């Protein structure tokens, strides 16, 4: 057990280091080497998740270390998928966000704990990665929006449509809708309610409505100029939903 825990410690450190190296290499436009470093990051992460799954006898998405690592992996994965469609600066910013999530895991004391009885259902482990995948897409949309603020200032004649932001939002929205459906089914089975007055659930509804609403903005000429600011604000809402409700509220989802 302790040997396996040592391997977990090594794998998470090596994964984080690989991610850091990938960022440095990307800064110097060493694309091939950066990709290799990201592949290493993925491999070390797989070792991390694999051993935890073995030790817990369950899917490894049940504590804060695993949650932040899952988010980190999914953000990096999203960056790799959209690497050709975003600028190098946007790609590096997204990887920095993934690194921040990975580094956060070192803040916590990591105890391997078995999942509680409520978590032992198939609906929970598919609910979590789907919502984190949505966060990853929406983070990339937000970063894309932040980098578009400059063009917003310089362009008084109107804002470009930036279809990539909408495309990223649509993907995020699909994942989040599925996460909400799976979470709702789990809630019904575990607590008899698909919705409860719980901060995390409430903020998930807020996120779903907010990003669903933003999907319409391209077809609303009067509001199109708000697209960039609203997608930027969206990142704050994600942070509140993921970190804020997880640490600073009385939520059942509290870490």
């Amino acid at each position, binding site marked *: 057990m302790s040997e396996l825990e040592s391997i977990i410690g090594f794998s998470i450190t090596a994964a984080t280091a690989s991610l850091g190296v990938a960022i440095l290499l990307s800064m110097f436009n060493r694309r091939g080497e950066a990709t290799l470093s990201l592949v290493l990051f993925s491999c070390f992460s797989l070792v991390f998740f694999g051993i935890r799954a073995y030790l817990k006898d369950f899917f490894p998405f049940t504590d804060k270390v695993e949650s932040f690592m899952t988010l980190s992996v999914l953000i990096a994965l999203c960056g790799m998928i959209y690497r050709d469609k975003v600028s190098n600066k946007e790609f590096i910013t997204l990887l920095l966000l993934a690194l921040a999530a990975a580094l956060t895991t070192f803040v916590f004391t990591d105890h391997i704990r*078995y999942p509680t009885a409520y978590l032992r259902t198939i609906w929970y482990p598919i609910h979590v990665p789907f919502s984190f995948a949505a966060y990853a897409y929406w983070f990339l949309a937000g970063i894309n929006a932040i980098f578009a603020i400059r063009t917003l200032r310089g362009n008084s004649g109107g804002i470009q449509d930036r279809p990539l932001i909408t495309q990223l939002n649509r993907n995020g929205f*699909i994942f989040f809708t599925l996460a909400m459906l799976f979470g709702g089914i789990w809630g019904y089975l*575990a*607590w008899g309610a698909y*919705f*409860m007055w719980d901060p995390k659930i409430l903020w998930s509804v807020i996120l779903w*409505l907010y990003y669903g609403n933003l999907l*319409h903005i391209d077809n609303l000429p009067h509001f199109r100029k708000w697209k960039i600011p609203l997608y930027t604000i969206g990142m704050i809402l994600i942070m509140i939903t993921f970190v804020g409700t997880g640490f600073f509220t009385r*939520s059942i989802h509290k870490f």
Partner: protein
Amino acid sequence: MIYRIIEILGNRHAGFILCLIVVINLAAGSLVMNMNPEIYPPFFPFDLKFFFQPTISVHWWLYLLLVTFSLFAINMVACFIESLVRIRTTTTGRLRLFIGIFIHAALILTMAAHIHDGFYGNSGQATLSPEPTRITGIGYVNALSVHSTHHPDGSLKDTEATLKIVRSDGQSIGKRIAYNEPATFDSGKREIIIQGGDKRPAGVVLIRKSDGKTFDMMPYQPQQMNNGRLTLKGVYQSQMGVLIAQFVWEKISEQPQLLTMALHNGMVRHNKINIANEVLGYKKMLEVPVVAVMTRYNPAIPIILLSLLVATIGTALQIHYARTQSK
């Protein structure tokens, strides 16, 4: 004229603003709930009646939410009808229109289900044992058995219980419940959800030293023996943490006698009683299952199931659309 009214009510710019207001309203509600833990119990099911019994000013965000959500719903319904009309005449972009129709229909249905459940649904708590417990809408429920499994570190893995339910029409059924596996009734509208369970000491098995005969002693169920009768009054825990059984021994010619017995095999001097020159020793405990459950009644389940179906279709179409867009 009607179409014009629908167009005005379903104005997309207005819908966008209304949705943002709903978002701000929900965020404000979340903050108010978090700042007033003495008013809002943590993690309670969707119960709108809670906010009206009584109406207090701190619930302002919920009352406002009902207004903003209603306006948003009116806008969405109008928009939805307008899209239905438009889809008949449009030849391009029909997939996007269909996605919009399905996703918005799912949202409208979900909101309707929430209102229905919020005002007409209810939830309660019950403790089930071998004695029948009446649960409104379900019938009389007995816990027949309970079994818990644990992880190697001793933490709880799962608890499962077997229930016997006698419905109001007299039909008797058996159900197994466990964490994430509730017993459902009436097409899922009613649920019995496990919240915990264990075995509780309820009685004692005594052994008569002279012939080795055993007696199952349950509270207030007297046993005839040695020309008298022995009754278990109850099982208690002493200040030292030892379980103690109290008995009453009655014989026609004698005064009733109060007897106590330590229910522990190691306490050889105290784990027996003497009655009519006979020694009765402690053999083992008799345990009964006790299961803590939550009961739920949600009359809106058929609506939410329809919403789930519509949302699934809408999402499937959206996945198809996203794939065509990314090519």
